[in-house]
């Protein structure tokens, strides 16, 4: 098996934490993992992306080829479209719907949504709302990880172990909140899948 995931968002949205949890989970499963990050200038509110590749065989390139990504997992809807050329024809977009507008010319959401829907059956998640229900708007990224979980070949409990490991140092409350956020995202996607079929 091999999964190629593009994780995208805006600097400060916690996309590296999403990648870190998937990394930890894949490592627990004895899978090969390769994660390319973007650092530096792009962190000051700019576009941020990470290429994540999981495989049971050796991975050569850290970068995902254009037209081959299985999933675009985005914490911001316009950022999901920015990497559309990476998506495989049968690939899927899982994105949060809340916009981050910090530049001129940001398009109206309806146009973004229309473009997203043209890709087939995107999972559009009100991550901000679900995160608030979980107790903190800052857990949006874990909501999105949960929403993407059914499309990645990693078990729920292994991903949750990853979340525990990542947030351990911040105390039990933070861990519980992030797991709750993850489960809310997961439940949302599972419903989406049922409706779809």
């Amino acid at each position, binding site marked *: 098996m091999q999964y190629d995931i593009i994780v995208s968002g805006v600097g400060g949205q916690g996309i590296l934490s999403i990648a870190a949890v998937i990394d930890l989970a894949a490592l627990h499963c004895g899978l090969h993992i390769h994660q390319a990050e973007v650092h530096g200038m792009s962190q000051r509110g700019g576009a941020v992306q990470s290429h994540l590749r999981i495989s049971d065989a050796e991975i050569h390139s850290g970068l995902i080829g254009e037209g081959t990504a299985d999933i675009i997992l985005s914490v911001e809807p*316009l950022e999901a479209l920015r990497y559309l050329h990476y998506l495989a024809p049968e690939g899927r977009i899982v994105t949060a719907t809340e916009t981050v507008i910090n530049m001129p010319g940001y398009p109206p959401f309806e146009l973004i949504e229309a473009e997203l829907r043209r890709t087939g059956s995107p999972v559009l998640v009100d991550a901000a709302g679900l995160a608030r229900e979980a107790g903190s708007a800052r857990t949006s990224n874990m909501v999105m990880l949960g929403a993407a979980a059914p499309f990645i070949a990693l078990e729920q409990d292994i991903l949750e172990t990853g979340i525990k490991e990542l947030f351990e140092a911040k105390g039990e409350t933070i861990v519980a909140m992030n797991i709750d956020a993850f489960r809310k995202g997961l439940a949302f996607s599972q419903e989406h899948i049922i409706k779809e079929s």
Partner: protein
Amino acid sequence: MKKHLLLGAEAIAAGALDAGISGVYAYPGTPSTEITEYIQKSRETAERGIHATWSANEKTAYEAALGMSYAGKRALSAMKHVGLNVAADAFINSAITGVNGGLVLAVADDPSMHSSQNEQDSRFYGRFAMVPVLEPASQQDIYDATISAFDLSESLKLPVLLRLTTRLAHSRAGVTRAMPRGENPLHAEYAPERFVLMPYNARRQYEGLLGKQEPLERLSGSSPLNRMIPGNSSTGVLACGIAFNYAMEAKKSYGLDISVLKIGQYPLPRHLVEELFARCETVLVAEEGYPIYEELLRGWFDDRNIRGRLDGALPRAGELTTGLLAEALGVKRRETATVPDIVVNRPPGLCRGCGHRDLFEALNRVMEGFENRHVFSDIGCYTLGALPPYNAIHTCVDMGAAITMAKGASDAGLRPAVCVIGDSTFTHSGMTGLLDAVNERTPITVIIADNDTTAMTGGQASAATGSKLHAICRGLGVAENRIRTIIPLKQNLEKNMATLREEIEFPGVSVVLAVRECIETAARKKRSSGSKPANQ
């Protein structure tokens, strides 16, 4: 065996720790910063007392590493590619003196210029200095190569250059670590015949360096970093560093039966290259960076059989990808979805609430009153002041150039001559330029944006801030009453404008210290004082 998920940069750090270094000397710069940060946070550093404090610039860093090597211990020096321009004098000459304890220079190049002003290729410096250059391809390769770099350095008594590029430095993969070895004992030898580079000694040392070139090539020939992956088609790829990954990915995903010669150690091993040319009619030379070896090979073999960046098979500039290599090998480009036009750019900007914003606001308003509004600037977060809405600065060339360019422009008659430089950039390379201006009483206004940190690379400690900066300016000879301090906050706008205007109008050297802590760094400090440090 336990796997650690490490960034390429961190794999160098782990390798250096396990190779028994006694110190790392570095100046932060993307994508090399994490090398030093990993060492700073490591358990070994705390336990063994490994030197890991940031240096003032890359030259002081490399020279200190050379000094540690002189004293018999192993040292790592780390920097980004343009940092090596600063350290080049020391680096090139250390190849003439040679080393004592193992000395490895890790340089991270930034092709495609993700956060740099050029995409220069550090392998040139390696050839220039005539020292071994290692260019590993994967995270494990990097870890192993770092350890062998120290071995090579100690056995050859030469510094070794370890080169990586952005995508390797900033991508994570599993690494298995070896048994760490101990540090070298203190063992400084009197060897003025090597280390005093007066012409008589230098000539002999240089002869010695020339004499080592053949053995170096032989070592490349037997290095595990250089190896052939044979195929049956008449096409081959000479794949340097990370390009090996793309060649192998192309081979696998498009079922290409190509031969791939992996190159990870230079000088180029001639017999392996000859073997590739004997196997293949056409050879694609894939280098992440400049076509250095492609140029060389076009002289060694029949130019018509060679493809690469120079004949347009690969683009002349920018990073390589699997797709680019596959196309160069004749694979048809995959149809992909196109990014819709509504996707506008999202450029990085100064953080909301950043003090630089208030500084630029005040400076812009003051400059409006002048006919000449040129502001010379430098490298740091404040470079973003060049973008809208501020458009406040007009140059950013190399570390420290703000002050010296302002001085030259002032010499030419440009008034006012104003420049903005950060605290860390000032201590890196700005101080000497200020001394030039003081000595000539050149009318310039130097605004030092002192945010108490090296913010752009993630908030590393700065060599001098606050009262220390004030004292440095005094010491360099700026008059006490011409060193003014402002606090860039909204409520101080009028006051700050008045101070800036006075100093800009003053016909001599003046310094305005704009002092306000970076809010990101302040927040990080607060967070880390509350929670446990991250474990490695």
